[in-house]
């Protein structure tokens, strides 16, 4: 399958009065057409910055963004415009991202008519179709509503509908289901999954919630980010079932689950520090070393680990894990033994 989007060695820094923020530090990703990549991480991990970069809303400080093999920021205007049409973003907050004085009809008509895809009555027909696609049915109940007349879940559906108006190839969904209530979130996720299957849209799905990533990204890959780097990447099911990076393990062990027996019996990962370092002063070597239970002085605080292939399906950026994989230890030291070492 052809690669639809590639990010190569992206670095993103921001100048602030307090110093330079290192939001992305040499991140590379690639997504095949029709596939899904989930980005999981805590605040400050760089997942939203990477999403904006993929959507073309931000130009990286260095590194390249390729769309169907073409360097987006060096492309001519026609290629760039085609890329911008093909890649759409759905933001976290449907309250902030919809214009409060525009009706749903006008919000969806604007991109259609600006790009001369439809006119007049045809526009209305197309808007009805798109509203039905995002399960806002019957469409006539919603088409003349203002955002404040809609519930949070309905507003997020309008955001998704707007992203679909130009027939995108890639949708960047940035915490798209995070702000809605539990009962609504399930139906929103199911709508997104159906759209993925029906429209064969490629997804970059950004979330802080590994459970949601697992649900949406079942058939794709998940990358875990920490302080502006990818620390582990694997097919989603594998990543969760057999995580290797100590940060991923810590994250998995920390997640509270909606099951009292299970959640109270979870193995614990004993982090050396509860505090997340500042992006203004990143730790030397591996940025996870001040918190990592596998920390080895003289190695982890000196050399920054590369993301290396541990096996055919999994990449990990950890000196200790990579070395032990080289020794053939990982094949036997999965699960319980690693848990024990991490819980010391």
């Amino acid at each position, binding site marked *: 399958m052809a690669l639809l989007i590639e990010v190569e060695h992206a670095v993103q820094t921001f100048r602030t009065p307090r110093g330079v923020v290192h939001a992305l530090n040499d991140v590379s990703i690639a997504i095949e057409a029709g596939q899904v990549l989930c980005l999981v991480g805590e605040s400050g991990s760089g997942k939203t910055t990477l999403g904006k970069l993929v959507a073309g809303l931000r130009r990286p400080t260095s590194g390249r963004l390729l769309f169907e093999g073409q360097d987006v920021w060096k492309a001519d205007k026609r290629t760039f415009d085609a890329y911008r049409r093909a890649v759409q973003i759905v933001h976290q907050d449907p309250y902030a991202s919809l214009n409060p004085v525009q009706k749903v009809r006008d919000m969806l008509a604007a991109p259609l008519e600006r790009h001369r895809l439809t006119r007049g009555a045809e526009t209305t027909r197309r808007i009805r179709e798109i509203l039905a696609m995002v399960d806002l049915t019957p469409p006539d109940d919603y088409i003349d509503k203002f955002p404040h007349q809609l*519930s949070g879940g309905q507003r997020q559906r309008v955001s998704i509908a707007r992203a679909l108006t130009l027939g995108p190839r890639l949708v960047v969904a940035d915490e798209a289901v995070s702000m809605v209530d539990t009962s609504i979130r399930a*139906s929103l996720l199911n709508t997104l999954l159906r759209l993925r299957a029906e429209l064969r849209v490629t997804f970059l799905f950004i979330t802080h919630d590994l459970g949601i990533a697992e649900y949406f990204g079942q058939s794709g890959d998940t990358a875990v980010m920490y302080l502006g780097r990818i620390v582990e990447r694997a097919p989603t099911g594998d990543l969760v079932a057999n995580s290797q990076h100590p940060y991923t393990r810590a994250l998995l062990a*920390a997640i*509270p*689950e909606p099951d009292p027996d*299970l959640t109270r019996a*979870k*193995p614990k990962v004993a982090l050396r520090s509860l505090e*997340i370092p500042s992006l203004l002063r990143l730790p030397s070597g591996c940025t996870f070393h001040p918190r990592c239970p596998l920390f080895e002085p003289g190695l982890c605080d000196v050399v920054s680990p590369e993301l290396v292939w541990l096996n055919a399906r999994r990449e990990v950026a950890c000196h200790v894990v990579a070395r032990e994989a080289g020794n053939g230890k990982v094949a036997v030291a999965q699960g319980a033994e690693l848990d024990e070492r991490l819980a010391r």
Partner: protein
Amino acid sequence: MERSVTHLGSGPSGGTGRSSGAAVLSVQDLWVDYWTPRGAFAAVRGATFDLHRGESLALIGESGSGKTTLGLALVLLLPSAGRLARGRIAYQRDNQQVDVLALSSERLRRFRWEECAMVFQGAQNVLNPVLTVRDQFVDTYRAHQREGSRAIEARARDLLRMVQLDAERVLRAYPHELSGGMRQRVLIALSLLLSPQILILDEPTTALDILTQRAIIDVLRRLKDQLGFATIIISHDLSLAAELADRVATMYAGRLVEVAPVRKTFYSPAHPYTAALLDAVPKAVGRAAAISAIPGSPPDLRNPPPGCPFHPRCAYAVERCKQAEVPVEPVGAGHDVACIRWRDLLRDRRPRPTAAPVS
């Protein structure tokens, strides 16, 4: 104290014949009204429950269910548009019962911190930005006319250590020098300064990162074991209830629709809404399974549906659900539900086998 057997969640034996000696807080038929430009409505409708000594009760529900309003009503800190319309809140200490609604304003002020402290939602932002953490502890202490600044320093240090903070560093720090998770832990320590019997926490982990959430959960569990206070944990997050609760009260449209021991709530819920909420979240990481949405949306409380407020969204609804108020029925020990079809629900959902931990 007398209690009707039909009162929801009034005791571990389903509200029958148990002495109220074990309850630190007894809430009966509590109603809260809100006044808005678009009309008045009842945000809490007839809440009745007991909180037992050292117990952890989770109040779960979605936004607009009334859970925060109920929490605020317990310490009489409703916003100006809110009014406690009816009901009774009885607090018990040393075998003495206190009618909270009858307290003078001075005694109520003391009740709020010395007996029943509350950590508000988004509380990371309520610390005074121009005071060091040490001064916030001293201020609180002085406001309650306690003497001896040395004693307070020692207590503050102990509490900060219990919440896994570097006490020396944090006491000297201003709030902006601390992360959100650190501020939340400072607030929990501060709320325990005067050794309350009850701690109410409103969404204590919402908007915090996973590792920070884990730290808060572990800290709360340890503190409760060491200090023995009772907690009311208000959250939309079922997982937080699974972690910390002994009992769970499910709220919907201002009503407590189910109160049950935590394992009953999660493994054999008797209210269709509780069951639907559980089905709407992924089971657990590593066990991808289909999730199902709850159709429709929560009712407008200005104009709630007649009968059971959940009936328009409920797969079990029958004609009778639309007509009359739903009586509360005991399901089992400490398990009460407001649903006429709970037996059918239980039959359809055989209890899940006890889950083994994922490795």
